């Protein structure tokens, strides 16, 4: 089992619905977010390329955040989901420093928070909140080990990229291009 996400940049409109849906679903306090939108513009008017990306923790296969965590609060669960146990986290921020994607933040309660792939929803057979809400239906979630899952199929059929491959973390969010 290897959970992953594919996000179609040809359809994403950068609306941030995925951000606000995550905030309400997971009661993320105002002013904080587990996912966010990046906009890149290339070229000179009128020869332009515009890309929106919905970004979050990449649930990497090779996890500097887990390695640097001194207490074991950062850990990996079934399906490769990277999680933080609030009770164990001392808020030292080592993981925040080690993540090349800036995917973690210190919550007002003092522990480190990040995307969980909505594992509480996956357990009920639901998609993560961001995937379920996206009005352009541009996000695909599922098990990469299952060749018939939505995410396996789009990754097999489309061109894709991952962010900062040079960091060597083996990220599991795939951007369809």
């Amino acid at each position, binding site marked *: 089992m290897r959970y992953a996400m594919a996000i179609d940049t040809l*359809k994403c*409109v*950068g609306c941030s619905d995925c951000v*606000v849906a995550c905030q309400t679903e997971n009661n993320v306090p105002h002013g904080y977010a587990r996912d966010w939108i990046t906009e890149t*513009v290339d070229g000179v*008017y009128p020869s332009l390329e515009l890309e929106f990306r919905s970004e979050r923790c990449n649930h990497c296969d090779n996890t500097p955040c887990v390695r640097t965590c001194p207490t074991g609060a950062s850990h990996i669960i079934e399906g490769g989901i990277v999680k933080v146990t609030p009770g164990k986290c001392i808020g030292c921020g080592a993981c925040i420093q080690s993540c090349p994607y800036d995917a973690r933040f210190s919550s007002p309660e003092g522990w480190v928070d990040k995307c969980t792939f909505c594992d509480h929803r996956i357990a009920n057979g639901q998609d993560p909140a961001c995937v379920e809400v996206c*009005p352009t*239906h541009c996000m695909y979630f599922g098990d990469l080990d299952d060749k018939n899952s939505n995410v396996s199929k789009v990754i097999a059929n489309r061109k894709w990229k991952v962010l900062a491959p040079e960091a060597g973390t083996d990220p599991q969010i795939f951007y369809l291009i």
Partner: protein
Amino acid sequence: MKTTRRDFIKISSLGAGTIALGTPAIKFLAGADDSENKGKSGAVTRTPNYCEVCFWNCAGWVYKNEEGKIWKIIGNEDDPHSYGRFCPRGTGGVGMYYDEDRLKTPLMRVGEPGNQTYKEISWDEAFEHIAGKMKEIGGKYGNESIALFKHGSSGKHFGKLMSAFGSTNQAGPAYAQCKGPREEAFALTFGEPLHSPEPLDIRDTKCLVLIGSHLGENMHNGQVQEMSEAIDKGVTVITVDPRLSTAASKSKFWLPIKPATDTALLLAWINVIINEELYDKEYVDKLTIGLDKLKDHVQQYTPEWAYGITTIEPSQIRATAKAMADASPSVIVHPGRHATWYGDDTQRIRAIAILNALLGSYGRRGGFYLPTKAKLPGFPSEKNPNPAWSWRDIEPEKYPFASDGVTNLLVDGSHPDYKGKHSIKAWFVIGTNLPVSIPNTKRTVEAMDNQEFIVVIDTMPTEITGYADIVLPECTYLERYDDIRVSPHREPNIALRMPAAEPKYESKPAWWMAKELAKRLGLDAYFNFENYSEVLDWQLKQIGSSLEEMKKIGVKKFEREFDDLYFAPGEIPEFFTGSGKIELYSSELAAYGFDPMPVYKPLPEPEAGFYRLIYGRAPMHTFSRTANNPNLTDLMKENSVWINPKVAKEWDLKNDQKIWLKNQDGAISSFPIKVRVTERIRWDSVYMVHGFGHKDKRLSRAFGHGLMDTEMITNVLIDKESGGTGMRSNFVTFLTEKPEKEVQS
């Protein structure tokens, strides 16, 4: 078409008349029917609602957590407006409920008009005072002299009250500040306005032309979703925009047009499509009238001619015309929604309508489908009195094609410079922040200062509340019943709104306010119910459903009565125009002395050092009303002014630098705005998102954040056909130092 759809309309009005029988069958005790929704401890519960954060009115479920607190809102899978997915504003709608800046109690102005000091009063005092004033002003000047400005679902309840009271001086910015010209242009061409949601068959279209729309930034939910589906199926998107909009970035063709020249491009497209015989010959032959006249008329509008005006290359104009024709009839030249741009808007959208007619897209798969509605009878009520005059009589010569109340006419009739016989003396304003929604704030304020009495009903202390004599706090859509949503769509469908929680603070639903006022005005007979749930249950039972059923399902769909989603092959429908045909040449326009076919007329250009102000929408905000929503300000808390790098260099402007704007009439912005240097905007224009720069300090998150575009919109060009207020003929320049004048607060 005429047979099936006309009959349909007839049947439904007949239905409503025959069932007008007196007392409703079932009575609930006020509030008692909500008990099952008071979240039981330990269980997550959900109640149906339809979203009020924008006019799309998506249906969904309001979830409450184990403690019974409103938690999240999720789309209803059966809903054709949302297809089970809300847009960011709808998802963040919980913030409308939790916003701690909400209006909490009825307020009464203390002292003189203009003095913004208020005292809290009870609902009883408020109603006694308002009813007294209504009687007094109605007695002096006639009940017609009291006008209603309204928006959204709650506006309807006060609409009923005012109609019962004898005033049809009712208008909303949704017409003259938004889609008015579009509705008239389509009515003049095809015999019917488009209504909302627009019957665009985007999911099955092969070519989508966006020339008045930035879908994806305006989150017209169903359309955004269908566009995405069409992208998956390989649709050709053509976007005309001086700005690289989100949609433009997803388009096969982006035509970076010089702003204010759209009509020239549209006419050149018509020229190519006719001259190169790219139009749908059989359709145009059988269904339309005026092709010969149109052909002659557009000979002058060649692509080469248009190039000099629009800066779009003739080859691009031809290639895009060809792409549309290749997809015909599965092509949509999008009619847009906020259409009040340049004061010639009915004519510009007529060109869009004509283009669709030539491409044979109206009434065809992948073009415009033919919508239908559920037939929900109205709740039995007294017949309304006939008012002696109405908004049209304020300036009888003006706007002959306006089919709905024109807000700016009501402002004219309220203004001290009004010379006619039909003056407005008092205002009710519900759900619309007029100083921001109607352009030329100064004139609106002068009109308000000239009123004897103003009542404002809202959920938030927006700018308009500062002009009121009485402010009534409305509860949010998550805390109330409203009318059943009955919308035109592919299938008839209805949706229920019910309270998910008790109204916070002292706030109350608009239906209750209207009813309580009616009592004090002796108009009880028009509000013959205790709780609005009775009205809904009675109505629902007439069509084989019930409140109980709707509480469980939220949305109910019905079969179409006729198999007429599109015209049948070979069908020759009759249209509700003067000629019964689609009018390429409009005899009606000609009869009133307007251009029967659209003519290109150059619009004013900015002087050196000035840039055309273009405004638009961000996906996470609606107008000016979400700027204080705690969830949505998290996503975007202020607007910025987009400036092309060349221009920024000339002015030495940097990203995030705060500047003030000044327009061609010398109006200076109250607040500064951050610069965004970006290639996404042309060098002759600047762009900003509408709805920021709030001036009321009671909006703690929105106050002073960003700039209010309407402050810069002092040159308003009015569409003579419909009364729509064109707002895109304003030019701004940059002030890098804080201007001398005091910043208002």
